[in-house]
């Protein structure tokens, strides 16, 4: 009896250290904030545009991730081809790539001199860097792997016999995907979406490298915090608190309904 309790204590202490590591900085943020001055700091002309841009781009990112990520997750989950393992590893690369490196890669692809960007500019006159579209590109690049891996995991747990059964009932593969597969993995999709959204919201390195930093156009909330930190730290803290609040509220709401 006693040895079990000692063992449990041995686990409890490191667990508490882990909690401290995560919670202490957030508590410090709350403690050091100049609460009385927050409304004034938030009135800073860069704050609202930055928040608005962040919410706009992350929403677009989420929609794009769902539209292109769900079919990819399905492909990875159901494919028996040998190359699938390689494809899955490839999809995971942006997860381990330092974000700035991701930004440089995006420039090499879609910049003015980029592999794709050059043609795009010549043919259609479109230039992606320094635009809100570039922000979405950067966010999708870093967030899509999170979404795909989470959803693929959920889809792998789905009994593959459902597909065949739905087919015998007359459902085309597209219909089966829409009416059977997606509803049955909805919790996995919600979980993947939450992860992807959170990652996109916090994206900094790829954004500043690829999209640049222009208030109202490409200056997302994380960028605004970084810039504010040097000139007006309290404004940075105020904006940080707002982002913290938004994240907590949304993740909390999702947790209740979808995430276990």
């Amino acid at each position, binding site marked *: 009896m006693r040895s079990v309790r000692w063992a449990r204590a041995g686990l409890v202490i490191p667990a508490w250290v882990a909690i401290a590591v995560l919670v202490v900085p957030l508590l410090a943020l709350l403690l050091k904030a100049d609460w009385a001055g927050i409304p004034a700091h938030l009135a800073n002309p860069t704050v609202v545009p930055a928040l608005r841009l962040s919410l706009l781009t992350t929403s677009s990112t989420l929609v794009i991730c769902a539209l292109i990520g769900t079919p990819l997750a399905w492909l990875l989950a159901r494919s028996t081809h040998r190359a699938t393992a390689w494809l899955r590893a490839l999809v995971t690369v942006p997860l381990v790539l330092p974000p700035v490196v991701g930004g440089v890669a995006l420039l090499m692809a879609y910049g003015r001199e980029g592999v794709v960007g050059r043609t795009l500019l010549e043919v259609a006159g479109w230039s992606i860097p320094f635009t809100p579209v570039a922000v979405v590109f950067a966010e999708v690049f870093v967030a899509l792997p999170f979404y795909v891996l989470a959803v693929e995991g959920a889809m792998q747990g789905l009994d593959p016999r459902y597909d065949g059964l739905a087919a015998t009932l007359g*459902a085309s593969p597209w219909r089966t995907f829409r009416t059977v597969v997606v509803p049955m993995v909805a919790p996995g999709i919600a979980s993947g979406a939450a992860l992807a959204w959170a990652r996109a919201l916090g994206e900094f390195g790829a954004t500043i490298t690829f999209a640049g930093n222009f208030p109202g156009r490409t200056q997302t909330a994380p960028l605004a915090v970084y810039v504010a930190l040097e000139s007006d730290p309290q404004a940075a803290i105020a904006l940080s608190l707002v982002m913290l609040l938004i994240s907590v509220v949304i993740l909390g709401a999702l947790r209740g309904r979808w995430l276990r």
Partner: protein
Amino acid sequence: MTGLRADVRLTRGLLQLGVELSAQPGQIVAVLGPNGSGKTTLLHTLAGLIPLQHGQIQVAGSVWDNPADNVWTSPEQRRTGLVVADHLLFPHLSVVDNVGFGPRSRGVPKAEARARAGVELAAVGLGDHLQVRPGELSSGQAQRVALARALATDPALLLLDEPLSALDPTTRAQTRADLGVRLRAFSGVTILVTHDPLDALSLADRLVFIEAGKLVQEGTPQEVIARPRDAYVAQVVGLNFLRGQRAGDQQVDVGGTIVVAPDIPAGGSGGSVCVTIPPSAVALYRTRPDGSPRNTWPVTVSDIQLIGQTARVILDGPFILAAEVTAGAVADLRLGVGQELWATVKATEVSVYPA
């Protein structure tokens, strides 16, 4: 040509499947065989989930699969219904929407699909369970809903893959009865895959036995019960099965041992015949019985199973025999594994027919 005419040939891993199967509309054909014999694969080729490599599948006059002529109909275009052992009802849809899934997928408007679903559910006795979620159903009810779902698309071919195997014995008995009623009212072809002899004997019009991908016997239940042509089939219908050569008007040579039986027919190729002996006809004695019983053999008990008042004793001798004796006899004979006994069978109880 209505009904089913199938010549299924394919190789899948270690299984080489080569079966010809045909059935008339309204017929229920049971497909039996040991695990791995290819029953489910056969069903899946009929459903269109596995393509043929050779042969043809034709249902209600249209060819569904013919590799040689490059004819292929995808599963969603075939008029099939599939029921599996663990129902696989869509958990996110209500019972009525589950059953209406097929019609909806074929373009039927929602209201009409629901109405059709209601009719099918009433036909399996669940007309008042429309809005229930699958998770709230008992296993027997779920299987009936699965059947209704398969029938809602008005299929030409109904495929049942061990539909009762996942149910507990009591539910199984009741659901078997319900199934029987519903299947008899179905006008298409039913192919029922099972390894339960009771399913086959009580539900089917014809039995088909498959072993290692090949058809070993087919016939009506009565034919099969009377004359199994294979050890597995005999086991299914509960008979001892031996193979031998005709050695006279009343004698069969089974691996060197003579078995006496009345009126032995001419025999198949080379005089080979099948011999069946009901377990209840095997009598056991501690010492060699007097008189001149013709079929008397020394045996050793290798296994005893007690089922209520009856014991099934497996005996090892010139050949393996199963005997059915009363529990009382077990006590009288002090039966135990390894015990040496004498087994006798009256000649009149031995059935012999050409192989």
